[in-house]
């Protein structure tokens, strides 16, 4: 419905005022009435008497009319039963008479009866409805123009499990869930410091999704925090169903395949980044947490790099950059070499390649495109298919990209190898977001290699570099700390220097307080070689 109205809005500007009101789904902003029946009717009307709306009249005695209202499934039923319904039943002794006594009863229940941490008294319908929909229980008493809002949020949640998209050999096994409270607590447990500040806001006119920004006060750059806050506040859409919505609505540059926000399912990744001065954006209803600002090289860093020793991490990071390059230009190089630069291949190899190509009817570029597209189809099918059919796809896939395709004379064996190594390489990049962008650019590289050979590859590569250098993530240059160069931050880029050399936080990300460790952190053998204790 709202979409339809919005389209209309473009056609007719004059009606915008009325339409805006409908689009924003304004809830009643008036006060609660004294009459219990009226109030209940109001709730029934606005919720359309939905079947999951539970209205439970609690008659303590004949005189007092009390009613609890909650949404089934959003509340924690045992809590409602035990601490709301049961407490009220058991504790109403005095016989209230008249309005004043009822007011007194309300206060008594608020103060003494309901044994739950967070209880509020509200009188504005709008706030009441928002809290009702978030899983709170409402308690109305006849003749009292207020409502008691009891925090009974609960219901079914997924357990904290190992994140399936970011598995590590070494490191914590917990991952974010769909509940924002759980997610914040997972981070808080790692950074037990009052300077870890959380700000929550509701985004999405219809969905009213909780979105929190989380940062370390004193380390995060305040300008960037402000920028994040402003950009989030600016969002005025119907719904936020996943952090991807937020990502696309707040990124600096939309015309790029490179991600300018990092998303992760791992609380330790978020904690590590928050400690470097980054800001985490948590969205209720998704386990994916956004991190900003990010730099290009971050997509090649897995959280495990910090858990294993630096020499190993460094070599693995080099490997990742290599695989990124392979997934980017391997097919393009093959095309360029076989159609332009035959002199660059050792004679024996060019004879082998030429022999393979004798039977292939297509030019190398068509062959490569065919295979790459086939692979992308397979990959896409593999993600969407139910597990039961998955094995069928892998068997059929092995026929399409494999011996059968070669024997059918459609592709050459070398091409199958190239496509396979490209596929494997594109999956070994730790971040899926950057891998998929490489996958897209790969096709551009293949086309430019087919038209200009190595010259084309070099040209496109320069274009890509220039583009990367022009990108910003919340004002931070995407290629930093390489461009602009920051020598003291180069230790955590493609190389991962040992912890005792991590003297400073990333300069451009956090602005205050760059020093992050004490002096002389380098470990060494004991001063005395003798291990004997003196007597």
């Amino acid at each position, binding site marked *: 419905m709202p979409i339809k109205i919005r389209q209309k809005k473009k056609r007719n500007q004059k009606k915008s005022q009325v339409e805006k009101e409908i689009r924003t789904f304004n809830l009643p902003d008036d006060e609660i009435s004294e009459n219990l029946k009226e109030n209940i009717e109001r709730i029934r009307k606005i919720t359309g008497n939905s079947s999951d709306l539970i209205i439970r009249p609690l008659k303590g005695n004949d005189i007092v009319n009390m009613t609890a209202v909650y949404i089934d499934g959003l509340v924690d039923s045992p809590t409602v039963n035990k601490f709301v319904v049961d407490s009220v039943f058991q504790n109403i002794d005095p016989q209230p008479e008249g309005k004043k006594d009822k007011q007194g009863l309300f206060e008594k229940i608020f103060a003494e009866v309901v044994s739950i941490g967070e209880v509020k008294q509200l009188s504005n319908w709008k706030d009441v409805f928002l809290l009702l929909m978030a899983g709170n229980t409402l308690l109305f008493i006849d003749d009292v123009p207020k409502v008691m809002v009891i925090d009974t949020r609960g219901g079914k949640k997924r357990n904290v499990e190992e994140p399936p998209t970011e598995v590590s050999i070494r490191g914590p096994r917990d991952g974010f869930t769909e509940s924002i409270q759980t997610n914040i607590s997972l981070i808080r447990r790692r950074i037990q410091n009052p300077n870890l500040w959380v700000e929550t806001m509701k985004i999405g006119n219809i969905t009213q999704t909780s979105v929190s920004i989380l940062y370390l006060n004193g380390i995060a750059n305040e300008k960037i925090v402000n920028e994040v806050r402003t950009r989030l506040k600016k969002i005025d859409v119907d719904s936020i169903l996943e952090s991807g919505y937020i990502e696309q609505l707040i990124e600096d540059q939309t015309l790029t395949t490179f991600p300018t926000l990092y998303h992760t399912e791992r609380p330790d990744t978020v904690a590590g980044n928050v400690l470097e001065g980054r800001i985490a954006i948590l969205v209720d209803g998704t386990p994916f947490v956004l991190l900003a600002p990010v730099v290009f090289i971050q997509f090649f860093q897995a959280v495990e790099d910090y858990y294993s020793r630096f020499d190993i991490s460094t070599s693995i990071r080099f490997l990742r950059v290599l695989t990124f390059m392979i997934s980017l230009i391997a097919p393009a190089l093959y095309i360029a070499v076989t159609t332009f630069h035959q002199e660059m291949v050792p*004679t024996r190899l060019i004879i082998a390649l030429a022999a393979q*190509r*004798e039977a292939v009817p297509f030019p*190398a570029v068509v062959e490569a495109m065919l295979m790459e597209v086939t692979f992308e189809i397979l990959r896409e099918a593999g993600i969407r298919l139910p597990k039961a059919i998955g094995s069928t796809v892998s068997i059929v896939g092995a026929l399409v990209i494999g011996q059968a395709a070669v024997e059918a004379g459609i592709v050459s064996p070398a091409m199958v190898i190239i496509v396979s190594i490209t596929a494997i390489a594109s999956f070994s990049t730790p971040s899926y977001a950057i891998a998929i962008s490489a996958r897209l650019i790969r096709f551009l590289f293949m086309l430019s290699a087919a038209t200009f050979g190595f010259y084309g590859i070099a040209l496109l590569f320069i274009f890509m570099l220039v583009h990367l250098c022009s990108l910003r993530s919340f004002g931070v240059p995407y290629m930093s700390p390489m461009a602009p160069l920051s020598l003291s931050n180069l230790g955590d880029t493609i190389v991962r220097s040992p912890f005792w050399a991590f003297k400073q936080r990333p300069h451009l990300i956090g602005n205050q307080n760059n020093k992050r460790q004490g002096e002389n952190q380098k470990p060494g053998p004991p001063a005395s070689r003798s291990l004997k204790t003196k007597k």
Partner: protein
Amino acid sequence: MIRVFGLFLIPAISITLLTGCWSTTELNELALVSAIGIDKNEEGEYVGSFQIINPGSVAGSKSTGQGTASPPVTVYTSTAKNLVGLSRNISAKASRRLYFAHTSVVVIAEELAREEGIKNLLDALDRDPEFRTTTAIIIAKNARARDLIKILTPIDQIPAENVIKMLKTNETMSGENINTKTRQVIDALSTKERDPVITGVELTREAEGGKLESIQQTEPESIIQVGGIALFRNDRLVDWAREKTARGIVFLLNKVKETDISIDWKGNEEAVVYNMIRQHTTVKPVIKNGKPEIDVHVKAEGIIGEVQVAIDLSNPDTLKRIEQEVNKEIQGELSKAIEKAKENKTDIFGFGESFHSTYPEHWKRFEKEWNDTYFSELKANIKVESFIRRTGLRNKPYLKDTN
């Protein structure tokens, strides 16, 4: 929006201007030339033979499924007045464009090199961007280049590759030939201070070497073998050096890697073999009494490879005597080589070059008559220091009659 449009427009415009690299050729549109042979016919035209690889028939590369055994190479010949013409005339016969980047050998007929010289042949090779000047150049000794190009070889299936490997192996194992690159010949031709040397290759048993049957037997009907070093004066072949003389030349060019030197021992001819494993030869020009002289210093290191007489090798004096004999032998070879070059008045060692760089002011005097006068009267002081590193796995021979 304009910016974005401009971002795409600028490369789009430049693309139309930068068409220099526009030369897409699929692999199956190319004929890989592995060797070129150049002869001359009676009419005075060049006869070019192009050895083209049949990728599908080379074992090791995947066959296309047809069972017919065709030879790994095909030879096309054409005639023309110049080299580019040769290549162009092939297009009337071959289905694909000739591609020279993988050419490994250029064969020049001896007759052509003797009578006309090679200087006219090299320009096209040097000028063509595809052709590599690192390609080996050889002389077909007593044969037509065309016949050599046609021979099929058994182990390395592509004949050109076979020849290259043979030259390289022979160069390291015996030190009796040098694998000359086109570039080196061009360099030598462009200066007066050095004359080129090119390895010769000859055919044994000139039979049906171009048929597949010739290699389908344990003893191939025709074999290509190294045939000594061709000495050139300017660009003309003047003489051949073989065996020890050839090795002397290679020594003087400091190109010997490994070789074995046999010496006589108490009347037994070539009874002790010295396996030289490394050497270094320095050539130092000196001027004595206004006359150029050359100091050659060879430092060699080796092991005893074979002893046919009973000698006690644990005795250092014996080893010293062997070393002296080796010195004498090497010295003799070097003198022979220098004598041969002097006879032909061709400075293949580049002595002139070293005089020019060491004594530029004297060189002006030598320059004009270098080959004819100064070089042929050049005195060479040869000093050899050989050293026996090891005697192999055995000190005393099992032969008992010690003398």
